[in-house]
């Protein structure tokens, strides 16, 4: 750090840039902080100009959102979202784990081609198959059925999961597996005792990222569900047109529905890049 040509001392400039980073961090977080604060205000305090920062706090927004004020209860939508997200994540893991095994630990011939086939399906836009899927669902009575979303979200996340898990399983050294085989360990033992401990954090991160994408999805859910299988994002679209004083309620709803994603995202923070870049960046 001993540069000759700098005018200000590196230490002071470092502190200055740190301050800039703090400032930008706060600016980016401000809308979320304001949303959280507004959700605890009364409706009349939420809709003022200039904004009332120090208004009294209340849980009315949350009471309104959870339907105790007479509106539609969000619980069915939250349960549907949980079923669709958890269900599809479990199915993704069941399909992706063996596939990743066959692409890393005991690779098939031309395994890179197979890997890239999975990736290419991810680049096919959702609208490419939306209409036939809608017609199929309509003709088979699967419309407004949460299990249809489970299947579709599985196909949406499977390529990401295969890519991520392939890269995590490839981190298990081949020599360790061979050594265990020489010791006479059978496949289930090797998977449980050798592969799992090394790959488990990666598998958990994969699951969390798949959960986030399923929980967030709107287009499929909007087109393919109605009153029965409606998910949380579809429930939120009910707030698109203004309904008088409803700001605190909107904020409470947005925050509650985002909480699972925020929690999952922070839990998977270290592996987030790897998942989002489909395993290309570590």
């Amino acid at each position, binding site marked *: 750090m001993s*540069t*000759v*040509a*700098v005018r200000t001392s590196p230490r002071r400039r470092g502190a200055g*840039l*740190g301050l800039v*980073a*703090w400032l930008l961090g706060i600016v*980016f977080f401000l*809308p*979320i902080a*304001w*949303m959280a604060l507004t959700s605890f205000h009364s409706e009349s305090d*939420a809709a*003022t*100009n200039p904004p009332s920062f120090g208004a009294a706090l209340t849980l009315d927004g949350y009471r309104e959102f959870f339907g105790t004020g007479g509106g539609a209860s969000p619980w069915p939508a939250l349960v549907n979202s949980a079923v669709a997200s958890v269900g599809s994540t479990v199915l993704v893991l069941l*399909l992706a784990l*063996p*596939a990743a095994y*066959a692409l890393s630990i005991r*690779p*098939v011939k031309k395994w890179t081609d*197979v890997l*890239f086939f999975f990736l290419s399906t991810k*680049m*096919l*836009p959702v*609208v*490419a*198959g939306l*209409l*036939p899927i809608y017609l199929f669902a309509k003709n088979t009575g699967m419309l407004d059925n949460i299990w249809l979303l489970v299947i*579709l979200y599985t196909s949406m996340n*499977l390529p990401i999961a295969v890519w991520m898990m392939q*890269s995590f399983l490839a981190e298990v050294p081949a020599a*360790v597996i061979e050594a265990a085989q*020489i*010791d006479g360990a059978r496949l289930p033992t090797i998977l449980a005792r050798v592969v799992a401990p090394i790959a488990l954090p990666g598998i958990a991160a994969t699951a969390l990222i798949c959960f*986030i994408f399923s929980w*967030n999805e*709107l*287009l499929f859910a909007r*087109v393919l569900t109605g009153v029965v299988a409606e998910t949380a994002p579809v429930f*939120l*679209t009910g*707030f*698109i047109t203004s309904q008088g004083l409803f*700001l605190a309620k909107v*904020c409470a709803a*947005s*925050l509650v529905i985002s909480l699972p994603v925020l929690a999952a*995202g*922070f839990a998977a*923070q270290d592996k*987030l*890049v790897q998942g*989002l*870049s489909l395993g*290309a*960046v570590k």
Partner: protein
Amino acid sequence: MSATTTAPITATPVRMTRRPSARLRAWSTRGPLLPALVFMIVVTQLPFVATVVISFFDWNALYPKARHFTGVDNYQQVLTDADLRHSVWTTILLTVTVVLVSLVLGMVLALLLDRRFRGRGFVRTLLIAPFLVVPVAAALLWKHVLYNPEYGLLNGLLHYVGGPQPDWISTTPLLAVEASLIWQWTPFMMLILLAGLQSRDSQQLEAARVDGANDWQIFRHLTLPHLRRYLELGALLGSIYIVQNFDAVFTITSGGLGTANLPYTVYQSFYQAHENGLASAAGVLVVIGSIIIATFALRVVSSLFREEVSRA
């Protein structure tokens, strides 16, 4: 695993002699892959083939009996329709603006976060948060809580400095959608670029400093060339996601005021107008656009991937 080093190597051939036939072995290797592969082909490839087929039919869902083959008429209609052509342009404008601005902002943030300072981990967490808000919720937040002309936060803050009180969504609809997307996607770009910065060769940087290179020279001649592929990757992955964006357009403007992009138009033309043939033709065009981006994206991913494999 302590026994592994002492295990006699000669034990291997003995076990190997009882190997099943080659064909059975090949299938036992392929076996675990098949469920995932078959699932993907059935759920993603078949519907796309159906879309291509439907795109050659004149088919309005309200008049199913009148369905008939029309060849490339739908494509002609899509490409000559003023609204649809406008939505192609909107899609391009939206994608390019959001990707470029988030890349530049993401780069600034990544460079700042690459330095050591007090509370770095916390600031990183603050910056990631916008990406972890459910997209519809984020769009609602911008539409009602920030943009609202009467009581939105933006005009509230402007009020303090005696500024104007514009109606953001009506006066600059596309910009309003773009700003909310930039807010959500900058953290994504930042994360990718930060990973790129942290994979730089520290010895090379040290050597450059010893040779008297200043910060700008190091950035221009070492960091930027190294980051090139990370920038490409961020741009391409961002494009793939934002070309497909539906949530923000649907929530903030409901496709009005000239902000309807292709995914919204496809949704509208079959969900509201019941024009199955036209919707499919527009869908196929979105796919062709995506394939062009995806070809480049796959090339970048595969070059990074080869590097990883050869390094391992």
